[in-house]
């Protein structure tokens, strides 16, 4: 099964050296990654792919499935990259080479039951994205690629630093098994140095939070996504951040057993502070990429918040919705920005033909879906998530504080809501009508995301998400 998962990515890597027309093959190779993942769903869990090192469970299979669907969408949109931006065939070939390495790293990272392998996969994925950023011809791409290399390396080093401390805290009890997530989870209460574990967890989480653009690194990711080609931003938000948040899910499950109140305090302060800053940054942002990128940070913060509050279903639903909506919006910027990178007015005007009309409809729905207007899955996930937060506080003495926190969050989310509605109105009603070209593969990619969102809301998906944790 593991070879089936890795073969398409390895094929993609080899093909990128030989074939000039490699990009036409890539949607098929991405589809080939999806097939063994679907098969993984049918197998009894936990399913060992490589001893104790790689173990598929419901949580990581779901994350991998979502990521592979995003991968198909991105490769479809990549078919017409050169129609929207200035890119050389050589750069595209290099891009695919690193895209394949990115996939291999992610498969290892998402399916890892071993903290070390999780880190190695994440580092591999991070390093491969550095060169993908560099393929962009924008003048700032060069600087931002180095920026990503340096800050990404610091973030990932913090993750390793934390892992070493966690390993040191659990090794006296578990031996070399202290590297295994499932062993740590089942024997967390036996760890006799909880302080060391918590220090490790806090440092690891800070590494994850830097990678996701949380406080105080809010603009770091947005600037990088602005400087790179739009499919990179889609990969970041739909796949790379999924692997990062998957890591956070697993580490926080163990931290929850060690000391729940410390975990809650740490994550609540960090995420609320992040959303506070991001909401005002979104209000001030003046281009699609930065707005979408900052909105991505807001959603990742909400997912982390819901997860630690016990709203695991809400977190996973929000995660799936974000993973489909955000790449769809990033991919649509190729067309939306055809009049200029800061030209928001009239961006939703000038679409003709079936492809154009469908593009207009889908982008409008995605724009409104991302701010949680019903029936967007985000509406339901936020409803359940905030409900879980209040439910958690009911049994404690902190109910008033929790209601205050939820109210503050709703006020901050309303600022983002206002900005997106303003943006949508500006795109639809202001500015001149200029004819825009939409390609079939782009509409196909957006349709794939729309169908995935509908499936996410189906009763069987909801039932599956509820059963994961």
């Amino acid at each position, binding site marked *: 099964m593991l070879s089936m998962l890795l073969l398409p990515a390895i094929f993609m890597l080899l093909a990128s050296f030989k074939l000039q027309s490699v990009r036409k093959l890539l949607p098929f190779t991405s589809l080939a990654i999806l097939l063994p993942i679907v098969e993984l769903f049918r197998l009894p869990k936990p399913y060992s792919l490589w001893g104790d*090192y790689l173990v598929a469970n419901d949580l990581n299979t779901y994350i991998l499935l979502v990521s592979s669907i995003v991968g198909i969408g991105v490769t479809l949109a990549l078919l017409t990259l050169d129609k929207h931006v200035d890119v050389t065939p050589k750069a595209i070939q*290099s891009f695919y080479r690193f895209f394949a*390495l990115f996939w291999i790293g992610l498969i290892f990272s998402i399916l890892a039951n*071993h903290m*070390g*392998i999780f*880190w*190695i996969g994440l*580092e*591999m994925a991070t*390093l*491969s994205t*550095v*060169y993908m950023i*560099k393929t962009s011809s924008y003048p700032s791409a*060069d600087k931002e*690629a*180095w920026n990503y*290399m*340096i800050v990404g*390396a*610091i973030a990932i*080093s913090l993750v*390793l*630093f934390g892992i*070493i*401390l966690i*390993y*040191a*805290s659990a*090794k*006296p009890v578990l031996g*070399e098994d202290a*590297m295994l997530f499932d062993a740590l989870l089942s024997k967390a209460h036996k760890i006799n*140095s909880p*302080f*060391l574990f918590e*220090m490790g967890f806090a440092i690891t989480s800070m590494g994850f939070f830097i990678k996701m653009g949380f406080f105080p690194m809010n603009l770091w990711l947005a600037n990088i996504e602005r400087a790179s080609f739009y499919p990179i931003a889609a990969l970041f938000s739909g796949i790379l951040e999924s692997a990062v948040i998957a890591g956070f899910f697993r580490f926080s499950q163990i931290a929850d057993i060690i000391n729940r109140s410390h975990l809650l305090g740490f994550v609540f302060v960090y995420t609320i502070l992040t959303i506070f800053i991001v909401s005002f940054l979104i209000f001030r942002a003046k281009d699609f990429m930065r707005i979408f990128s900052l909105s991505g940070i807001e959603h990742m913060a909400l997912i982390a918040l819901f997860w630690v509050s016990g709203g695991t279903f809400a977190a996973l639903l929000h995660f799936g919705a974000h993973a489909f909506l955000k790449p769809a919006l990033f991919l649509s910027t190729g067309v939306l920005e055809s009049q200029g990178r800061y030209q928001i007015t009239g961006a939703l005007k000038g679409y003709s033909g079936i492809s154009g009309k469908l593009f207009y409809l889908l982008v409008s729905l995605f724009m409104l879906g991302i701010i949680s207007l019903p029936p967007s899955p985000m509406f339901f996930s936020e409803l359940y998530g905030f409900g879980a937060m209040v439910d958690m506080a009911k049994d404690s003495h902190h109910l008033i504080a929790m209601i205050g926190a939820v109210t503050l969050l709703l006020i901050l989310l309303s600022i983002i809501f206002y900005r997106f509605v303003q943006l949508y109105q500006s795109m639809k009603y202001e500015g001149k009508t200029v004819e825009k070209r939409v390609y079939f593969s782009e509409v196909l990619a957006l349709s794939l995301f729309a169908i995935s969102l509908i499936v996410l809301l189906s009763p069987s998906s909801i039932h599956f998400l509820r059963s994961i944790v």
Partner: protein
Amino acid sequence: MVEFFIGIFLATLITALFTTRLYRLLLWYSLNSMSLGLLALILGGQFEDRAMIISGIITLIVKAMGIPYFLKYLSERLSLNRQISPNIKIQHSIILIPAILVFTFYLAEPISHMVQGNSNYVAISISSLFLSLLLMMEHTNIAPKIIGFLSMENALFLLGTTATGGMPMLVELGIFFDLLMAIVVVNLLLKNEEEVEGDA
């Protein structure tokens, strides 16, 4: 002997922070990695840990010799600027570096009874991590930033060796693999920059 090599490790890193020439910086990095490799060999021998001995040998070959040589070759071929003046003045660094060292010893104090080995080693590992970050921050040139990143990997290796009595072999090898990939990416980024400048 372990104390001696840890001392050399820290001393080379501190010296690297004051260096203003690229090749000298590569030399300090090489010595830093060499002390780390020898340390792993000694500790591996003491604990009879084969994985740690293999890691030590790989460190000596890859980090102490291979990477510095490759970076020197790259800087010659791409004519990188060899004058690398730090942004932080030396008189400020002289105050800052001991402050970092004292702070990390204070930080590591509560965990001193929780780690298997000597807690001072853990404090030195953490301070090395901060000093590597400082090396990355105090330079605007790319080459010292890369050395800072590589020194950070060394600090983490030291932490893994001293705080846990050695990480599993698979993880050590994976970290080496990622390090090599980082070097490949750095090479490609620098090459690409050269091509862009050539076209211009």
